[in-house]
């Protein structure tokens, strides 16, 4: 079936839209037009793809995980190595793309929000490369648990602004970034780090990440001569997952699984499992599923992973969830941490805790696979940034 979402007005089924204050309407309209122009602009596309190749290091490898495969004794497991991107995660694909757009639109100042710090680092990196002023909003709690990334952003010349409102995590960093944008809309471009926010952001960010799935498709075709049976990715806002899934959406035999952070468990209050536990509502400019109280107040999410610690999810995921094209499950903090260890020991790859959520689901998925099935996990980021959390976790377990 042909997949055409979103509509012209930015809807994926009933999700998406442009729920923003009037002040941002001109900015969003301007962005829509500029983005549309780049789609058919060979000069822009060439520059973007050259940067992906020569600066980001694409195409990233598709690694056969032979020891992990042996561990489960079922289908073959491949890893799409977004952890090998410059800066250590997929986020840079989008940061570079949006920065080129900002330059085309004549904006001089870049702002961004960050949770795990990977999007902040990617944005700071792109700004350094192109000589832009850069302000990153980051929750105070996240600055603590991702200190290494704070140091990296500062070294790259970005100003990191600590956000102390609300839960002091990604949600509140996003609020502050939007307030900055509302105030400085004339000269400022907001590089949103996930497939959230008002139209056209969810579509645009997806399209800057679709290269992940496109490469996977080509690489697997060369390696195995066919499509995968399963794709597996972690989902916070959902950018790595959508970039990975999108090029396969029309391939009906490819099953796709998105893994949310269940925190202490999807049946507890300490969770970030938005689709499993959430209801429909509007947060940060679009209609989607979100964690909220009976009064419609946004609830605090919890996950050991700062990058998944978000009470909302991209509208396209809500659509894919409702239509059953993608299936979504939760993985707890402790399951994810066990997967950090497993991948480190079996494959010599220390994954980001975000990524480890997807890997942890192999425990449930692999027993139902056949020997000749192929499972590809999007290895969305590397775990260096998480070493403090990882060390503390395993020393407490002893």
């Amino acid at each position, binding site marked *: 079936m042909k997949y055409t979402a979103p509509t012209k007005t930015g809807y994926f089924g009933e999700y998406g839209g442009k*729920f*923003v204050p009037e002040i941002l309407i001109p900015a969003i309209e301007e962005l829509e037009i500029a983005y549309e122009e780049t789609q058919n602009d060979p000069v822009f596309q060439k520059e973007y793809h050259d940067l992906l190749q020569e600066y980001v290091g694409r195409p990233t490898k598709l690694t056969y995980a032979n020891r992990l495969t042996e561990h489960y004794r079922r289908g073959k497991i491949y890893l799409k190595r977004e952890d090998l991107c410059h800066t250590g995660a997929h986020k840079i694909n989008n940061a570079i793309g949006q920065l080129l757009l900002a330059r085309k639109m004549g904006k001089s100042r870049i702002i961004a929000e960050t949770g795990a710090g990977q999007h902040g680092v990617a944005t700071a990196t792109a700004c350094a490369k192109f000589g832009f002023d850069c302000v990153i909003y980051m929750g105070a709690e996240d600055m603590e648990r991702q200190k290494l990334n704070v140091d990296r952003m500062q070294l790259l010349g970005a100003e990191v602004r600590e956000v102390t409102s609300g839960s002091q995590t990604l949600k509140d960093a996003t609020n502050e970034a939007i307030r900055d944008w509302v*105030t400085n809309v004339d000269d400022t471009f907001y590089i949103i780090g996930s497939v959230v926010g008002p139209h056209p952001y969810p579509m645009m960010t997806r399209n800057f990440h679709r290269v992940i799935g496109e490469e996977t498709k080509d690489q697997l075709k060369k390696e195995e001569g066919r499509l995968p049976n399963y794709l597996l990715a972690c989902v916070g806002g959902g950018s790595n997952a959508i970039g990975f899934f999108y090029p396969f959406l029309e391939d009906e035999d490819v099953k796709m699984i998105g893994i949310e952070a269940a925190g202490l468990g999807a049946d507890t209050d300490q969770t970030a499992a938005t689709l499993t536990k959430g209801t429909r509502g*509007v947060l940060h400019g679009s209609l989607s599923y979100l964690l*909220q109280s009976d009064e419609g107040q946004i609830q605090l999410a919890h996950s050991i992973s700062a990058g998944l610690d978000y009470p909302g999810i991209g509208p396209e995921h809500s659509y894919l969830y409702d239509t059953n094209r993608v299936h979504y499950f939760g993985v707890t903090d402790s399951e994810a941490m066990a997967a950090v260890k497993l991948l480190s020991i079996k494959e010599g790859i220390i994954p980001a805790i975000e990524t480890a959520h997807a890997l942890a689901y192999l425990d449930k998925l692999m027993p139902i696979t056949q020997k000749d099935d192929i499972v590809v996990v999007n290895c969305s980021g590397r775990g260096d940034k998480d070493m403090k959390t990882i060390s503390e976790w395993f020393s407490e377990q002893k």
Partner: protein
Amino acid sequence: MIAQKTRIQSLFENKSDDEKIMSLFISAGYPDLESTVELILGFEVNGAELIELGMPFSDPLADGPTIQYASNTAISNGITMSKIFEMVREVRKSSEIPLILMGYINPILKYGVERFCKEAGESGVDGLIIPDAPVEESSIISKTADEYNLNLIYLVAPNSTNERMRLVDQHSNGFVYCVSVTGVTGAREGEEVAKSVERFIDRVKSNVTKNPKLVGFGIKSYEDAKVISKEVDGFIVGSALIDAIRKEYPKKGWKDKVFSFVRKLKFGKA
């Protein structure tokens, strides 16, 4: 069926040309649940002609620190949508002041658009301002709001194009809310506002022709209000009023101090 005139529409119809309407914003449940009704009635006695009652939201992304603070306090105080409607009914026992509910779309969606509009209409609300539901997304509530005779009031900002202003004017009923500066809500230095507002107001006057116009964002004194609302129908004060409450609450006699601030805003003297 011709919709009945709301109290907002009557207010502007009956006002003389040089009269300036003062609209005051207060978050429901701030500084405490008990005071909201008394504050509203007191604002009316002391010069307010229109009330915007804020429906607190956990993530008010168009608001500055002052209204964020008031919203958070109200939520901690246990404000709910049902309590807000109770407050409105209480006000209506003794007052016919035009009353608008102002807040973000999410709590409305969660409450249910139909249920929300019905209760709003029946309790005596006259209009709605939903800053994160611009004209593009208005269909989510506009028809239901009409059914219950609630005016939907949209905003224009200094960066709105002329064409956009005309579109907003078409969709608005009651009045058009003119945001005087690009930015979040919050009191500002008078000059910062006055400097840029003149050209904006000129454009508003030539493009917003169907509706009365109130100007808000950044107004903190009688002097600000006088300058900024010279060419329009009135002005809106929110953050500065909340700051005034925050300064006095819960000292003895805090309400009188706040009402005296309101008189100063309206008349230039207490």
